[in-house]
């Protein structure tokens, strides 16, 4: 099977005034379609930088990155934006929802920037909301929802353009254990239906929801292992 993500000796170096910071060093990894991978590491280890590079939110400094076989190095900002819209979905720790909009409007947001015909929008939004089991909250303003529900709205938004991979950056970080587990269950459901998920976390329990864990420390990939004892659904994540 052709890998979805191929990273070959990729580094990200931030240039400051007279000094440079290596946030990611020679990272080499592949992620196949349909995998549920957790990227784990302590705070400041470079896992967010890795996610930003993989998610085309930031450009790597050296190395080679192929997304669905396409080298992303020389793409323009607009081409990267289109790729993010078509192929990638994001779930952030702090939800990043438009607080004064409804669940429906928030989930619809990526469609505004897509090539998907308008006539298909309603079905896509409804399907995405149904996938995270929030049909009953569709017309609610997101600011009225609980933390767990907000994160599920964010997951629905990530799903709406039918992406090839979903990046979840500490999705349970701002949630209590029950809500956190509900969010992880949602991600596992999606994975079971074929979605490729890249989960960033510093919590071993959360990482155990994945089928593979890539460990990162001081900008270096220090481990890549299959999860033997995968968490069962409903098991607390914290």
């Amino acid at each position, binding site marked *: 099977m052709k890998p979805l993500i191929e990273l070959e000796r990729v580094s990200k170096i931030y240039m400051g005034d007279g000094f440079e910071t290596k946030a990611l060093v020679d990272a080499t990894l592949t992620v196949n379609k349909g995998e549920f991978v957790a990227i784990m590491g302590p705070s400041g280890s470079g896992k967010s930088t890795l996610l930003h590079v993989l998610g085309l*939110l930031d450009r790597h400094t050296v190395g080679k990155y192929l997304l669905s076989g396409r080298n992303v190095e020389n793409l323009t900002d607009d081409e990267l*934006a289109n790729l*993010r819209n078509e192929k990638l979905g994001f779930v952030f720790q702090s939800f990043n929802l438009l607080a004064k909009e409804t669940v429906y409007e928030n989930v619809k*947001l990526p469609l505004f920037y897509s090539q998907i015909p308008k006539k298909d929008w309603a079905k896509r939004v409804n399907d995405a909301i149904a996938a995270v089991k929030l049909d009953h909250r569709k017309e609610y303003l997101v600011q009225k929802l609980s933390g767990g529900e907000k994160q599920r709205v964010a997951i629905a938004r990530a799903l709406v353009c039918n992406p090839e991979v979903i990046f979840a950056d500490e999705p349970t970080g701002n949630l209590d254990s029950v809500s956190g587990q509900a969010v992880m269950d949602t991600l596992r459901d999606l994975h079971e239906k074929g979605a490729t998920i890249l989960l960033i976390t510093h919590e071993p329990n959360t990482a155990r929801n994945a089928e593979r864990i890539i460990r990162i420390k001081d900008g270096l990939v220090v481990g890549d292992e299959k999860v033997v004892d995968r968490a069962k659904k409903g098991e607390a994540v914290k």
Partner: protein
Amino acid sequence: MTFSDSIHSAYKGLSTSKGRSLLTILGIVIGIMSIMIVMSLGAGAQRLILDQVDSLGSKIIFVSDSRQAGGPPQPTESLDDRDLTELRKKTNVPNANLVLASAFNAQRITYGSEAFDGAVQGITPEWERAFSLTPAQGDFISDDDVRSSAKVAVIGYTVRKELFPGEDPIGQIVKVKNNSFRVIGVLPEKGMLALFGYDQSIFLPISTFQNTILNAKNYGNFLIEVDDEKNINATVEDIKQTLRFTHNIQVGEDDDFEVQPQADLADRLGTITTGFSLFLIAVAAISLVVGGVGIMNIMLVSVSERTREIGLRKAVGATNKNILMQFLIEAIMLTGVGGIIGIILGGLFSYGAAQAIKQFSGLEWSFEFPIQGMIIGLLVAVSIGLVFGIYPARKAAQKSPTEALRYE
């Protein structure tokens, strides 16, 4: 993202802070409203003046003293009996149908204990025909009255109303500057003609006016009616030559009088009102610039407050152009709405002002909806949005998605 989607998202962006949006556009509203009012009143004033000048007819030429600084023509040493006699000679001014002389003075008119501040005008009998001044009651001034400097007066409609309420004025004595005049005629309501309020005036034989009010044998101005419009320019020259001769003005010296056809006068008055309107519009434009800076300020605050939203939009696929358009449309929408509110308020206020002027001044003022002002106002408002919105919008568009998402 389609244009209508951009408008939709800009609307959503603005509607989340309605109160602030409204306060932001206040400067634009006031600026556009001021421009509308100034243009409406300017157009109204211009229309009034031009109508008044036009009401004299296009065959009229005015002669006045060029040393006066505008305002109603005052009797001066410049125009006298000799001028009048020479101008009336067919050999001097062959195309003149009629040469009218008048002199004017603002005075207090009294009857018993009643007083009225009006105008006193010295005229000749030809005025009756020339300006349709046939009295509603009594007689007009006759040649005999002029010859004998009779102390008689024809009074205007308002003078009669103020001084003789419920009383027959004919035969009564009115006083001006301690001189007594017997009322021989009352004019019907005439309104204004050539910016002169006939209703607020009393008319004396010109000779009487010169002897009693002026104490000099001079005139304020001459009105000359030409037989045909095509002879106006030639007649202007004839008048100039005649007066230069009677005034003994040498070659190379300037005229001490002014000769103006009605059309020139209308043009000149039109230019003055337009100039004045432009000056006021320039003042109003300053408030638009201030308003524009206010818009830029608030848009910068908005961009800063919504940094994470910008990051999110970029993460889900918004291009730099999408973000630029969103914030630019927001700015244009703000100023556009400000412009529309300004136009509506400007229209209402200028209508109110026109009604008030009509009510309190008695002028034949008409409300002019400034369509030009409306178009200019809307274009200016949108341009301000564009000019002052582009900097904040570019700032928003250039934000890197990762930095924007990290923003606290």
